[in-house]
């Protein structure tokens, strides 16, 4: 939620404070403004706090059966147990290894295919329609096929996660390679750039923001694919912990694992956000939109 919103909503606290001019109410006004600023900063925590309160009170009073929603304390205890026994670290490492290897493979392949398609119109004409047709089939559609072809082992996970990352990277690389500004392209022609120089000095820098967006999207998709494939076909990993807990009706285990999945996804997303911003700042201003 950006603060650049056009709005009809109340003014920011600072603006209100300056409206009140008289000396007598000045201190009063300032404390009220401070209060409002405080409320403004705390507002995002209101909803989570309320939900958490409802959850813990509901469980303590017995409004909610523990088979349906275990108490927060139990979820926390399970989380600590998991962490202390080393189960959590083991399964998390397996999941991370899968997602990182699959993601790296898919991204590299995506750069290659997307770069080739972006640079050569001929190749695009031959290959792109087939690529588009294959892309129509979601990762989940390939799952039963690959399950038959390569079995339930590790290759299945790497292939699916790699495929999930490959598609957005390929498409954005192709698009990125096409958007070298026409004016700079003319300059490059005047300077008689070789093909290689044109790619390195012109096409690549212009493509960086689009590439960053593609990689970012690719990671989101890879993480999603990891969770799905571990839920459907796996005997270790975070997704497996969720399914295992569900089968034993240990909802505390399920919720603890969901929390871990959520936190890891969130942290990596934030990291990539920062990286993307960095990359965008690094591009020469001529390439900014």
């Amino acid at each position: 939620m950006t603060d650049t919103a056009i709005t009809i909503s109340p003014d920011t606290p600072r603006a209100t404070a300056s409206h009140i001019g008289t000396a007598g109410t000045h201190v009063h006004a300032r404390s009220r403004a401070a209060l409002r600023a405080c409320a403004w900063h705390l507002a995002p925590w209101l909803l989570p706090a309320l939900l958490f309160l409802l959850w813990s009170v509901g469980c303590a009073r017995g409004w909610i059966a523990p088979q349906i929603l275990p108490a927060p304390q139990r979820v926390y205890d399970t989380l600590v147990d998991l962490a202390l026994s080393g189960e959590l670290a083991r399964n998390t490492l397996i999941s991370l290894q899968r997602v990182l290897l699959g993601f790296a493979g898919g991204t590299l392949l995506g750069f290659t295919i997307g770069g080739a398609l972006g640079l050569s119109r001929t190749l695009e004409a031959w290959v792109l329609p087939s690529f588009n047709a294959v892309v129509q089939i979601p990762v989940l559609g390939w799952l039963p096929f690959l399950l038959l072809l390569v079995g339930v082992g590790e290759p299945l996970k790497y292939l699916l996660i790699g495929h999930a990352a490959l598609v957005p990277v390929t498409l954005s690389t192709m698009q990125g390679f096409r958007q070298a500004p026409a004016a700079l392209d003319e300059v490059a022609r005047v300077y008689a750039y070789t093909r290689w120089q044109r790619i390195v000095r012109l096409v690549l820098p212009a493509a960086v923001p689009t590439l960053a967006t593609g990689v970012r999207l690719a990671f989101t998709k890879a993480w999603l694919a990891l969770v799905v494939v571990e839920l459907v076909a796996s005997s270790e990993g975070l997704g497996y912990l969720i399914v295992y807990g569900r089968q034993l009706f240990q909802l505390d285990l399920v919720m603890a694992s969901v929390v871990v999945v959520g936190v890891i996804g969130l942290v990596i997303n934030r990291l990539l956000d920062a990286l993307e911003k960095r990359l965008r700042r690094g591009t020469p201003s001529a390439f900014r939109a």
Partner: protein
Amino acid sequence: MRISLARRPTRPVCACEATVETRRRRVDLRGVALPIVAVALWWALSASHVVKSGLLVSPVDVLRTAYEQAGSGALVRALLASLAREACGFAIGATAGFLLGGALGLSRIAARIVGPSFDTFKQISLFAWIPLISVWFGLGDAAKVVFLSLAALLPVAAHTCDGIHAVPRKYVELANALRYSRLQLIRYVLLPAALPSIFTGLYLALIHSWLATLGAEYLLVAGSGIGNLLIDGSEQFRMDIVLFGIVVVGVTGWALNALARRVERTVLSRLHIANQ
């Protein structure tokens, strides 16, 4: 009074158009070459019996399975079951998402209170919720529809909110100068200006909920649907069923895409709103 943002330009008819048209047709032919070669190779491989595996079915087998599935009505039943759930979940999720996104976009207080929680929730992998949803709503259609509507809600809410935030300030200033009431501002300025973005959200929601339909059918196995067809085929080692199912999934996804694009184009051109 209505602010019409931009008129859709009428297509110029000129000589260059014809050459573009013919070139595109030739491009299409080149694009078909690769799939034809792939199918021919596949056929040759399966006919030559070099690889002795029950998994290597020939294209003819797949066609036969397709014919059987379509003829016996199994395909129609599965597809209808999936699409009915998809439509139901999409309708619920898109409506709720539109309302939520509208609230987030229009009110700064709502955005401040709900926004960060929403953003966090958005980034958690949706499929991780399926086991919990299955405990709370069972394995039947109710659980699937809940999951689908969640999948549809997120993109619609995010894009509705973004669309309203991206409305140029000058439009709002003009509306203020004309003393529009709040309702008029929403009806004649904000909604039309945010519509392209809202459509992007709806379009994404359609794709996500189709994906979620498959996922829900894999993970909540009760009932029938195209996902169950695929999983059953996989469990019975019937590669022909799996391949046929994949094609059906791909074609359905493509058809949903095409439908969404078509509706978007029609509505936007009716309202004289240019898509960015």
